[in-house]
């Protein structure tokens, strides 16, 4: 079954499913009384914002780190 799916289709469906689940999770935030292990987590949609921003920070910090620690592929072979 997987062989028949094109990458574009998989990407499109994956994005749609994630958006749908995001919407469900926002609704769930208001339907259920969500509480965390710490008081900070009790802030409205805290895990959602934290996850989104942490991910972006990690990726961009990685890009900056490249300038510092990235060398040519044969660096150690010279």
């Amino acid at each position, binding site marked *: 079954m997987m062989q028949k799916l094109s990458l574009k289709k998989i990407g499109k469906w994956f994005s749609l499913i994630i958006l749908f689940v995001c919407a469900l999770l926002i609704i769930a*935030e208001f339907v259920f009384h*969500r509480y965390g*292990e710490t008081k900070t987590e009790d802030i409205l949609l805290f*895990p959602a914002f934290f996850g989104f921003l942490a991910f972006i920070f990690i990726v961009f910090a*990685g890009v900056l780190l*490249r300038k510092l620690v990235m*060398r040519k592929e044969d660096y150690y072979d010279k």
Partner: protein
Amino acid sequence: MINSFPPGLLMLLGGLAIPFLPHHTRQIWMILILILSAISINVDHGVHIVFELMNYEFIFWKSDSLSMPFAIVFHIAAALNIFYGWHEKDWKQHTSAFTYAGAAITALHAGDFLTLFLFWEFTVLTSVFLILASNNNRATSSAIRYLVMQFTSGALLIAGAAYYISVTGNSELTLLSLDNPGAWFIFLSFGIKAAFPLLNGWLQDAYPEATVIGTVALSAFTTKLAIYALARTFAGTEYLIYIGVIMTAFPVFFAVIENDLRRVLSYSLNNQLGFMVVGIGVGTEMALNGAVAHAFVHIIYKSLLFMSMGAVLYRVGTIKASELGGLYKYMPVTTVCCIIGAMSISAFPLFSGFVAKSLIMVGVAEHGLIIIYLMLLFASAGVLEHSGIKIPYFAFFGHESKVKTKEAPIGMVIAMVFAAFLCLLIGFIPSLLFSLLPYEVDYKVYTPSHVIGQMQLLIFAILAFIFLIRFKLYPPEIPSTVLNFDWFYRIFLYKLINSIIKVLFKIWEIFSLNFINSIKFVYSKIQNNSIQSGNSAVKVGRSTVLILFSLGFVLICNYLLF
């Protein structure tokens, strides 16, 4: 009969027959020995084998509620390895992997420091061949560095243990406090094996250089043996909380930019060890249960991820993200298994990682460590980035495949499917895992709050990924070398020692040149005087002094050099 051998020792000895057995018989032999070893762990807790030598009691077999879960999962990892490597005809790798697992299981049941040291060293000796078996210059150099670091760890352990035993008179593995140099040496020794920050270079250096089945075996034992040793001897040591939290955070950034996917997993392994170290540092029953549970599930899902990447390497011949992509069409089972491993490590509800990580997080929160808790939450987003998304995305999706290949060999598929099944089984029925933990678990994993909170964290992080890909902000993979802490001894220390030697040689050159010139000068003066005096007796006397002087110089040089 079985109970006269500590678990694992049978594997260590049985492994010696592997080179003499034909291909398939060898795998069946290993399974039989493994079953015997696994049966032997099913004994009452307590000391079972003690061997006395020169007034020292070597406790070869001590089992309790802490060693038991590790023993079970070590046997599972060894079984996965046997099936995963079924296609491999190289007896050297099988002997190495099997005896390595045996040594690790025996070390796990050691009740005293010297027995632990003995089998700790056996794990090094047996495992290094898994790196050497790659049979290229990079792997050979890496294996030598691996040996140096592991033996340094062993030397620190024996030095620390000797000091500790001489001061306290107690040789049993028990809780230590960092109030004497011996305990610090032992702490550092375990720290090298557990890949503490700054001491972690060997892990990302060596593991990705091993063979396809070698990396899977390596990922399971050494570091988790160190986690077990830390849990046994340094539970509740506050330093571990801070060390652990750094371990969870810093590899995340390196993993983002690393191109070798097995090296990405090695950074990820480091990050996962951090969670366990934090749990041990907190030291409460809940946190220790979390650390042990995490070690248990981690061995399975990390093996699964390494197995899936190994299968890709085996079929495609490379594991560089920049050269892979689109393999879902050709390796569907491997793709699904990899995604299950990725979802487990990312701690999605209904997967094993969620169950174990929750215990550590609750343990940290209950301890009132809010900042640490938030840093672990941040590291969780990092895990999703490198292991949850990057690994499956770049290997199996990303872009259309440049190569046509086929599904992994049947042995690999069986091992991966079994590991994936275990990830789901523990995720669906957490009580199965909880019943193995050292302390009773009074915690409900699946509450609406917990599930919604975790899903928000993960799904919105994935949304960030989609956003970055959509707007072409996600950094492309670049063929490169990412410098890690091993750079300090591979380049910095190497260059430092080189320059010191060069300076010493220069000094010696200047010294010897001046010395020779002064001798020449004295000699020419003597010769001139002799010619002028024309007296043969004076000539002979001066020549004798010159010969004696030269002989003296040669003797001094000899003494200094040899």
